[in-house]
């Protein structure tokens, strides 16, 4: 029976089955080809790394021959690969080895390749370029990196911010910290790391300036967290001003189980007490003692930590009172502060512990004493 003589429905079904089989076959061939191509590229990449890694490491150790004798980079893809490999090696090095690899990169002209990558729309390429320019740390690259700090995505903008910090920390922090108060998508850890890399001198003035700015609650909370990176002497007037304000009558009620912790009142008093703890100025002693009456447990805890940094024998009574605080952490901190007070021997401390009327306070003292004895 010929195909034309078949029932039209059957003919259609046969044609559809044939078409589907052909499409499936084509897709299978395509998958096979792509995986073969991928595997071939991977092998080529491995051969490339195996050839270049010893050269990079020898260069970093100052053991390499002249850079002019290095193998030529044939394609743009090889430049990308070398830049990635260079970053992977450079990431682990510092000192002269780091400087020698920087020189090598510029000799090969890959700094220009990195700059060209910045304008590509490929995120991986941009990240490789930003990482390379961060290692090079040359102010000539600042204008090319600066616009990327405004990039809508957090990944690129933060990488650009870190590159600027490596180039000029003071100038970078003046730009980046105000942005960190607008960009909620920037992670706190990355901002912390940028502040650490930039150093105290670079972050202090921008943070002090931001304290005067009106900020939304989440940004205010972020700013207060960042104050630990700043020079406490520069923050002291602000901290004292905060602690001069009258304390609220009672701790703020939680607005719900999922209340925004960043909007919690009292964060400023806690941050101010941490500043005074870092400052160790005896002139603040009475301010800190007054904060032991703060209705917020976390603020009383911060006050004890601040007091511990400059504790005097006359503070023993105040700390003993804190042993009956309703907050567990406050009782433990008070016990630790008492135990670490200068001039009190173990016998006196044991007598003090026995005299504590509050059962929970007595337990806190016993725990602190046993830890001290260890």
């Amino acid at each position, binding site marked *: 029976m010929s195909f034309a003589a078949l029932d039209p429905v059957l003919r259609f079904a046969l044609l559809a089955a044939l078409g589907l089989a052909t499409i499936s076959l084509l897709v299978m061939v395509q998958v096979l080809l792509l995986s073969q191509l991928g595997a071939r590229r991977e092998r080529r990449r491995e051969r490339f790394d195996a050839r270049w890694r010893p050269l990079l490491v020898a260069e970093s150790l100052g*053991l390499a021959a002249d850079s002019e004798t290095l193998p030529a980079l044939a394609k743009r893809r090889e430049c990308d690969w070398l830049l990635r490999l260079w970053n992977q090696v450079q990431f682990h090095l510092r000192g002269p080895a780091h400087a020698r690899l920087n020189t090598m990169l510029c000799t090969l002209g890959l700094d220009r390749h990195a700059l060209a990558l910045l304008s590509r729309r490929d995120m991986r390429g941009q990240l490789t370029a930003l990482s390379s320019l961060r290692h090079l740390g040359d102010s000539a690259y600042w204008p090319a990196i600066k616009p990327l700090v405004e990039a809508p995505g957090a990944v690129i903008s933060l990488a650009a911010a870190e590159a600027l910090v490596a180039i000029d920390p003071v100038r970078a922090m003046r730009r980046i910290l105000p942005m960190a108060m607008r960009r909620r998508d920037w992670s706190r850890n990355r901002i912390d790391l940028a502040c650490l890399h930039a150093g105290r001198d670079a972050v202090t003035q921008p943070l002090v300036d931001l304290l005067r700015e009106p900020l939304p609650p989440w940004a205010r909370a972020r700013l207060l967290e960042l104050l630990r990176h700043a020079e406490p002497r520069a923050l002291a007037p602000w901290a004292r001003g905060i602690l001069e304000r009258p304390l609220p009558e009672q701790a703020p009620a939680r607005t719900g189980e999922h209340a925004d912790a960043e909007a919690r009142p009292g964060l400023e008093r806690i941050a101010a007490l941490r500043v005074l703890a870092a400052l160790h100025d005896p002139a603040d002693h009475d301010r800190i003692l007054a904060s032991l009456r703060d209705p917020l447990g976390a603020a009383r805890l911060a006050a004890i930590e601040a007091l511990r940094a400059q504790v005097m024998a006359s503070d023993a009574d105040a700390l003993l009172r804190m042993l009956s605080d309703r907050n567990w952490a406050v009782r433990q901190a008070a016990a630790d502060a008492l135990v670490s007070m200068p001039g009190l021997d173990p016998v006196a401390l044991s007598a003090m512990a026995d005299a504590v009327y509050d059962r929970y306070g007595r337990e806190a003292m016993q725990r602190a004493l046993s830890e001290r004895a260890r």
Partner: protein
Amino acid sequence: MENDGVNQPQPRILLVEDDEHIGFILRFLLERNGFVVDQALDGRQALQKLQETPPDLVLMDIMLPYHDGLEVLAQLRRLPEWDTLPVLMLTAKAREADIVRALDLGADDYVTKPFQPEEVLARVRRLLRKPA
């Protein structure tokens, strides 16, 4: 940085490092300077190496898969053949608290990452010069 003591036996170093790039740099550095390097890629391999003849020095990362460097160090110090062996620890700069713990457990010295290869080499040589 080449070794000039041609007739002397080459000191053996056990390198415990899981990072491919750091491992390559350190191995390259040490071999080019006349050391024989045996590498363990994780804590489990490192513990297996403790059954073998001790090397002249151990250079070990703290962050390792399976058993961390501190755990390997503690086990190493319990073995009589290994208890006086010089141990140089590698640690990330951000985890400096680990250094105190490593020194408490019997490490002789440490280097923070990112590192200067010249510094690693100088510390290795100093530890190998020290009388056991």
